[in-house]
């Protein structure tokens, strides 16, 4: 003999909304009039659970932690226009000086040591994606485009660039599966502020083949699903969106 299932007319989600004061007036009225004993019992159960949850923690502490996270997510303040021009101008002067030094150098090309490429980055128009790998000693090393990593490697992302805006980091593994690594749990790109080293590390799985990492940046909010087709299939990016790519080989 099987026990009859108590009849429910309202979903848990509607009961949650009722407790949060979020149910529409029409559904709230319907709940008042049509709730079955099973609905009422479940509502009372959820209410008791809510009270127990709030009693189990320090709400002020939780709110402080939330506000700290919000601060970390805030975009950097915009620089004054003259300052924004000053930096590229300085970079141009430095580049010119470097060219002059090379021009007047007496060294033959064959004598020169090729530049150390450990810090090689790939650059989008407005950003550069830098990937750091945790080492056994507890430090981290900067990976270069084309480096080889092993499954289990722990990586952190840094996005270099001076503009405030919104960022997402997407990975595409050897099976062509895409993963949004930052911001985790989100389709919307996250605001990026002065802190350019993104929070949290990821650990590489054992899916064979190269893994491509894309930092996607725009000064305006965007959702990853609007840029993913362009990234995966090489299509056109939406206006104002730039991408920096790093490819790592997996052993």
């Amino acid at each position, binding site marked *: 003999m099987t026990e009859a299932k108590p009849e429910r007319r309202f*979903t*848990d*989600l*509607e009961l*949650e*909304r009722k*407790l*949060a*004061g*979020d149910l*529409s007036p029409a*559904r709230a009225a319907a709940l008042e009039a049509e709730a079955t004993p099973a609905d009422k019992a479940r509502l009372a159960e*959820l209410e008791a*659970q*809510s009270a127990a*949850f*709030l009693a189990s*923690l320090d*709400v*002020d502490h*939780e*709110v*402080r*932690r*939330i*506000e700290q*996270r*919000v601060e970390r*997510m*805030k975009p950097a303040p915009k620089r004054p226009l003259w300052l924004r021009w000053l930096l590229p101008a300085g970079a141009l002067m430095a580049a010119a000086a470097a060219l002059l030094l090379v021009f007047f150098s007496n060294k033959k090309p064959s004598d020169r040591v090729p530049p150390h490429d450990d810090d090689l980055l790939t650059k989008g128009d407005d950003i550069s994606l830098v990937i750091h790998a945790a080492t056994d000693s507890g430090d981290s090393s900067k990976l270069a485009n084309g480096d080889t990593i092993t499954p289990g490697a722990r990586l952190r992302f840094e996005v270099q660039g001076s503009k405030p805006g919104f960022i997402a980091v997407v990975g595409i593994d050897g*099976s*062509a*599966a*895409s*993963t*949004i690594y930052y*911001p*985790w*749990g*989100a*389709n*919307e790109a*996250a*605001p990026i502020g002065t802190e350019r080293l993104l929070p949290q590390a*990821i*650990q*590489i*799985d*054992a899916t064979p083949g190269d893994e491509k990492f894309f930092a996607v940046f725009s000064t305006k*909010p965007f*959702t990853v*699903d609007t840029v*993913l087709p362009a990234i995966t299939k090489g299509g056109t990016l939406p206006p104002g969106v730039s991408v920096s790519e790093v490819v790592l080989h997996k052993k």
Partner: protein
Amino acid sequence: MHGTTPAGDSVTELYRRHAPALHRRCASIVGNPDDARDLVQETFARYLAAGDRWSGATPFAVLYRIATNASIDKLRRRKTASEDELDPEVQAGDLGSEPRRVDALHDLAFLTRGLSEEEVTVAVLHHLDGYTQDGIAESLDLSRRTVGKMLAKFEEHLKKRAARTGFTEAKAAIND
């Protein structure tokens, strides 16, 4: 003294009103109350950091959607962190006697990559929580047609993804 939300409430007030439901939601997906508590913090932070970008939807609707997606993504990250953590035997300890639900959750986490937050929320409600299309429509203030379209898109997405990755067990698992 704490700040205010885009809707003008205090953060404390918003937390008291919505955190218990969000914690239940996150815990039902990730199976661990401590992870769920962290996800609730992350959910509120993302909601508040976005300012008034959520206009047009109620705070609960937005928070619930963020929490669901954050939890699903947490499962995806567990996959990248350690295959062992995906072992149903391990996760069953957190979720009681629901290893089958854990299987389906991980399958769904894998298969919903690339979908929008709202589509993921609807797919989880339908395939994991067993909500009917009518139930989802009423619970999320969406039309039944919109819910049907989102589920159809998910099915299409699932077929493509399964074909590309050779992933066949998942479909059986989430359709049980």
